[in-house]
Every structure is written in structure tokens, then in C-alpha cells.
């Protein structure tokens, strides 16, 4: 006995909503980064649930790709945050609103 596909989709949607609202509310660049990771994970849950209920391996492969993109994003994104912190001594995104320096 397992919950149906709709339960997993609802959980995924709720997690995505929390992540999207968090991106708007957080001012910390690292906090926004973590909210983006949460949204990626919500989408991954959708892929795995569909992969389970349609018996197809493609969804799980795509989750693998999403994880690779998330790892690359972590490396580059945290590099940008460190470079920004060096210039401004802050990771507040409101300090990065000039697109200059």
C-alpha cells in the first residue's frame, strides 16, 4: 500500500512554493542559494514519482542530470559569493544592486 502519485506531486508543489517564497524573502545571498537548491529538490521529487508510476527510467536519469547541474551551480555560485564578499564585506543582495564594481 502506497500513497498515490498525487500525494507526491502535492508535496513537491508545497516544497517548491516554500523555496520560491524564500527566494523573495531572503536577503542573504547564501539563503537565496539554499532556497534555489530546495526548489531543485522539489522538482527532483516530481521526476522520481513519475518515474515510479510510469515505470520509466528516464525520470531518474534526469534527476541525475539535475544533481550535476546543482553541483556545478554550487561551485560557481559560492565562488561568486566569496568574490563579492571580498569586495563588499557583505553577502546582502541589496548591496549588489548596482551591477558595477
Amino acid at each position, binding site marked *: *500500500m*502506497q*500513497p*498515490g*502519485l*498525487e*500525494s*507526491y*506531486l*502535492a*508535496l513537491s*508543489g*508545497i*516544497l517548491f*512554493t*516554500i523555496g*520560491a*517564497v*524564500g527566494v*523573495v*524573502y*531572503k*536577503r*542573504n545571498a*547564501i*539563503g537565496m542559494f*539554499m532556497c534555489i*537548491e*530546495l526548489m531543485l*529538490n522539489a522538482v*527532483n*521529487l516530481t521526476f*522520481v*514519482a513519475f*518515474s*515510479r*508510476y510510469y*515505470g520509466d*527510467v*528516464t525520470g*531518474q536519469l534526469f*534527476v*541525475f*542530470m539535475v*544533481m*550535476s*547541474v*546543482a*553541483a*556545478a551551480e*554550487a*561551485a*560557481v555560485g*559560492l*565562488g561568486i*559569493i*566569496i568574490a563579492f*564578499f571580498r569586495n563588499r564585506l557583505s553577502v*546582502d543582495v*541589496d548591496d549588489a544592486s548596482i551591477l558595477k564594481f
Partner: protein
Amino acid sequence: MAGTVLFFLFAGFAIACAVSMVYHRNPLYSAISLIGVFLALAALYLTLAAPFIAITQILVYAGAIMVLVVFVIMLLNLDEDKPLNRLKYLYAVGGGLGLALLAQTFFIFYAVLKTPKAEVDPNMTAGRTMSIGRAMYTEYLLPVEIVGVMLLMAIIGAVILVRKMEQPHLELVSEGEDEKE
């Protein structure tokens, strides 16, 4: 029955950790809450018969990425967020976005609930490591190669971004530069 209990246990844990991540102002608390979300999702992948993805989730997300995030938080010695002095309409934007996404979620929930149930094959092999590896190196070989190149680009990009470059001390010679601040 046990599957339903496990689903609601881990789903509740995931949602509670996600809310705690957005709620906390201290980035370190947020990071630890996010690790909770990742672990709960890994358990949910196990109930969805995807052990390879579950283990990869723990290794890559809870292991590598979150260690990197916590490392950066401690390296930069971040303290709590300052009180909000941002544009006030962002509250309305965030609330509206959240309501729209939740409405969409419940719409999808009822739409999927009404469609006839897809039969779940109890001895499905799609989640096994062998079937994933076979698909990865036959049918999806080109995407896997592209992912490899992308990871190499990310490594090079991260090194170039973080490296302290010897910058020549340039003097600004253009007129009108003094008036601006």
C-alpha cells in the same frame, strides 16, 4: 499501510524543515534545516523504489553541496541577517507568488486524483542501479558526456572566480567621474 505512514512521516519532516529553513535568520540554522529536507527526500526516494537516486542524494546534496555551503558560511563568518530594509512591496510579491503556486499545486492534486490510477508494477526494475547505468551509457550517452564537460567548466570557472588576481592599479582618467559620488 506502512507506505502511507512513512510517506506522511517524511513529508511532514520535509515540510517542517523547509519552513524552518526559510524562517531562520541565521544562515547556519538554515543550512542544517536544509540538510534535514535532503535526508527526508532521500527516504522518500527509497519508498519510491529508487535506491540509486536516494544514495546519490545523500552523497551529492547532503554530503558535498551542503559541506561546501557550511564551509563558506563559516569562512565568511556570517552573522544573522539585518532587519528588513528592503522594498516593502516584496512582501506582497512573495505572498502573491506563494498563493499562486499553492493554488496551482492543489489544482494539480485534484486533477491527478480524478484521473484513473496508474498501476504500479511491484517488481519494477527501473530504479535499480544496473538499469540506470545501462540507460546512461547507451541511450543517454551524449547527455552524460555533456554533463562531464559542464562539470569541468564549473571547476575552471570556480577557480578563476575565487583566485586573487594581481590587478594593475588603474587610474580613471575620464572626466565627470568625480561628480558621481
